[in-house]
């Protein structure tokens, strides 16, 4: 099976070398490249990426922000960091952010390939099952109270989804950028699948409603409704092929990220009037990147935020998660609440 690897780096010559390297392994890996974290997130939503190799210092969204987003929204996809910075504190911070491995440039190619092979091998450490009946297999997982991560590949379309189990309980599902029940219904509606079984589950909290049986029933019901609907004539018309839609709908795309951030800050501070203003500040991205560069030099780890107080005694905060966000909040809002709110975004 050919696995897709995403390499994220703003250095084009490095990406060209990566393409050359992976041409020699095209029976095992296909490589996709991009120049920053924001582009990487879009690719992760649309393509069945098995693993990410990322630089740290990049424009628009740096490697730290990408690792954060991956940990929250794509926890099943391992990330390897390849960077020029060799500081103990940077390495420590990166591993705490969930990276699988940390390499300094110039890369030793054999070590990178060895790590790729091992990491992706572990994803099928519990076995690979072709032409499987997903429903029956999952019921077995539940009966045996297994803890595992199951990567499900639709044999008809090549689409991929992930199911997370802990002690037989389904914790969550992911399909592209979707998680939760909607993602589970999509994946569980597939008929002929190949399963890659990993004997571990990175999630510990339930992010899906209901037990497996109820979810299976709901998935079948929804599938029947879709098939009976006049808009859908066959499986081939389902938007299951990744990339067919311009963007995969998330479970709650009606509220902008800024509005969500405001609500998160209000909720964590316990004060509905705590946010005076919230806005994107892309013009600050370059300066934030410079600050991060300084942080890399002194081994400070990822840049989180800048805090200052304006003449109205309000706290002005510039957060560095992805494109910079500028918040003006009441002086009493705790810094920790702000950081937590951005991580939840």
């Amino acid at each position, binding site marked *: 099976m050919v696995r897709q690897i995403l390499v994220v780096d703003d250095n084009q010559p490095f990406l060209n070398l990566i393409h050359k390297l992976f041409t020699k392994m095209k029976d095992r890996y296909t490589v996709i490249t991009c120049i920053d974290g924001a582009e990487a997130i879009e690719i992760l939503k649309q393509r069945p990426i098995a693993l990410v190799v990322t630089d740290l210092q990049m424009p628009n969204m740096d490697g*730290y922000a990408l690792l954060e987003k991956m940990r929250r929204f794509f926890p099943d996809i391992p990330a390897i960091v390849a960077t020029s910075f060799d*500081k*103990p*504190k940077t390495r*420590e*911070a990166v591993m*705490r952010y969930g990276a699988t491995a940390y390499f300094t440039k110039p890369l030793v190619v054999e070590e990178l390939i060895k790590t790729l092979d091992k990491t992706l091998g572990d994803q099928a450490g519990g076995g690979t099952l072709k032409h499987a009946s997903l429903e029956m297999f999952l019921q077995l997982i539940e009966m045996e109270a297994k803890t595992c991560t199951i990567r499900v590949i639709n044999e008809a379309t090549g689409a991929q989804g992930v199911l997370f189990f802990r002690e037989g309980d389904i914790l969550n599902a992911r399909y592209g950028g979707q998680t939760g029940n909607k993602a589970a219904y999509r994946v569980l509606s597939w008929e002929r699948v190949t399963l890659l079984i990993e004997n571990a589950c990175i999630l510990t909290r339930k992010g899906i409603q209901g037990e497996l049986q109820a979810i299976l029933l709901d998935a079948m019901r929804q599938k029947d409704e879709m098939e009976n609907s006049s808009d859908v004539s066959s499986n081939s018309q389902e938007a299951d092929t990744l990339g067919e839609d311009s963007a995969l709908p998330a479970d709650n795309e009606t509220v902008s990220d800024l509005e969500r951030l405001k609500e998160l800050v209000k909720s964590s501070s316990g004060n509905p009037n705590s946010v005076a203003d919230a806005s994107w500040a892309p*013009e*600050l991205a370059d*300066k*934030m990147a*410079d*600050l991060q*560069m*300084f*942080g890399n*030099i*002194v*081994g*400070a*780890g*990822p*840049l*989180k*935020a*800048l*805090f*200052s*107080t*304006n003449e109205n005694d309000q706290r*002005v905060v*510039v957060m560095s998660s992805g494109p910079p966000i500028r918040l003006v909040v009441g002086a009493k809002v705790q*810094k920790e609440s702000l*950081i937590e709110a951005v991580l939840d975004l």
Partner: protein
Amino acid sequence: MITNFDDLFSIDGVQGVFHISDNGKPLVAELSPSLGGNDNECREAKAFLSEKMQWRDLAPLVDGAEEGEILFDALRIYYLRTADSIIYILMSPQCVAAMVRIACDLITTEIDKSRKTRGFGRFFKM
């Protein structure tokens, strides 16, 4: 001009001090070994701040606020603007920021006082 930053380093958790003038001249640059700091890293950090993080570079990020904090995962940086320079104090996450601020107040008073002794003040009591 003699400005004593020793008091800052006596505060538990202070790990570095950089004092950069508005024309990019590094006036003070010290980095604690606890940050993995050696001469090379200190030089690199000093050069970077002098070139890329003078006051004119930081001001847009903080709406011109003359003091504030920059939060990293493993480090905090308290910055303070003086009349013609900026001071960056690198602190561990556990460092008591209030003590650093008090020490900085004394330092900036000293800096401002030494500035007043230029010009006529050198010759006449003001």
